[in-house]
């Protein structure tokens, strides 16, 4: 699909959404006016005819409000279609440019069982996710998606009623890269939150690294086989690029990099939803680059990815 055709499709979506939203607003205003008018008539005019008109106006006003809601739902549905269209065209193209053998599933995410196996986030109950991408980057198999993990918390009010609420314990990207061999052991790195003094079960010679991450390793020897001095510095560099809290798991043949940055990639934000195709494309490429920059740093480790 050419740029001009894409742009006209987007413009068509934009016009339709704007039209539906305008209609919804008008319907709401008319509905409110009708209901207000009906209430006034009912209060001040006592004749039978006036009462009948007031009832009719009230019914019409209520119907108007329902119609406004229906139109608004239609606008939202159309907006979702536009977002899906953006993902199918612009995002998919940006991904194909950067990666080989790409499989892009906007509605899927890294599976919950994989996240549980990694064991980076200790407590979570509900998982949401989107934009699952799988493919090869510089010859290495990778996968990533947006992931949101929520923990269920039960609280009791003064009258003893139990209230269940959910709070987000992780929101960001979950990236997996395949290494060139079975890793010698399991290792977990969790970037410390402010005031988190959770003890590591080993210490490296890099004091800053020890302070930044909680290190959880089954045995120190295999952890040191993976956490070489250069690689530790590379991890810190990747963490700076990620601009969020980073959690890393080494196990099996995969390295998992979970970045808690409260971001949702490949979505049309309010800022760029009215932009032209070139601006949207630049924005999506930028988001792909965010991932490739992090992958690039890890792939520098020729022992694991050579």
């Amino acid at each position: 699909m050419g740029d001009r055709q894409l742009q006209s499709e987007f413009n068509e979506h934009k016009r339709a959404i704007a039209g539906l939203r305008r209609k919804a607003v008008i319907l709401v205003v008319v509905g409110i006016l009708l209901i207000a008018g009906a209430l006034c008539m009912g209060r001040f005019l006592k004749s039978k005819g006036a009462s009948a008109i007031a009832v009719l106006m009230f019914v019409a006003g209520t119907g108007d409000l329902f119609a406004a809601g229906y139109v608004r739902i239609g606008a939202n549905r159309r907006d979702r279609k536009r977002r899906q269209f953006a993902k199918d065209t612009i995002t998919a193209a940006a991904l194909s440019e950067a990666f080989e053998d790409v499989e892009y599933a906007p509605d899927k995410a890294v599976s919950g069982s994989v996240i549980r196996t990694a064991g980076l986030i200790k407590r979570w109950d509900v998982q949401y996710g989107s934009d699952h991408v799988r493919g090869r980057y510089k010859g290495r198999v990778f996968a990533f998606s947006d992931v949101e993990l929520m923990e269920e918390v039960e609280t009791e009010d003064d009258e003893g009623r139990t209230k269940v609420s959910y709070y987000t314990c992780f929101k960001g990207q979950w990236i997996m890269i395949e290494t060139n061999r079975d890793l010698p052991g399991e290792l977990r790195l969790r970037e410390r939150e402010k005031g988190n003094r959770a003890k590591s079960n080993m210490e490296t010679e890099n004091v800053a690294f020890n302070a930044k991450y909680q290190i959880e390793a089954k045995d120190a020897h295999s952890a040191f086989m993976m956490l070489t001095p250069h690689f530790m510095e590379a991890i810190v560099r990747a963490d700076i690029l990620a601009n969020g809290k980073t959690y890393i798991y080494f196990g099996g043949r995969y390295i998992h990099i979970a970045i808690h940055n409260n971001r949702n990639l490949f979505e049309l934000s309010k800022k760029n939803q009215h932009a032209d195709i070139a601006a949207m494309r630049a924005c999506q490429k930028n988001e792909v680059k965010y991932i490739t920059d992090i992958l690039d740093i890890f792939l520098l480790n020729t022992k694991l990815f050579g």
Partner: protein
Amino acid sequence: MPNLERHFMTYIIFGAVVLLLIIISWVIRTLNRFKVLLVKIREADSGIDVALTKRYDTLTKQLDVVKAYAKHESELFEKVIKLRAGMSISEKNAANREMDTLSGRIKVVAENYPALRSSENFKALQAAIADAEDHLQAARRVYNMNVSAFNQAIVLFPASMIAGGGGYRAMEFFIAEESKRADVKMSF
């Protein structure tokens, strides 16, 4: 008055006993911590032994392969590296340095013999040596991590008083050769 004095004395004795118990339990805990760290150091030391032996065996095999190709240069490899049980850390450091030198010499000789470099056996041994060196680096770092923890534990006050009385001394690190610190090739 005498009653008050008797109570006062009881409190003092009780306080002193509690304090003494606290001190004794702290001394026991500190001594146990030293012992745990020493056990960890011994375990890490045996890890170094395993890795050093593995490196030594692989280097010996590689040396045999090289000698078959470079008979004229066998004097380059005359010096014998000795590995024996119960070596001190400084002796292990020395043996490791000698292995570094030998490994360097093998690489230099191999440069002059393309047939040797391209032989499958030599390539496989090179890979095995790289693996043995990785293991040695990891074992060295585990050992040094435990030695560092022990050395810190015995110099920090008040544990340093017990360490001094118990004859605990700072332990020697297993030192890596400068070139071996560049353990992972990172290509920029």
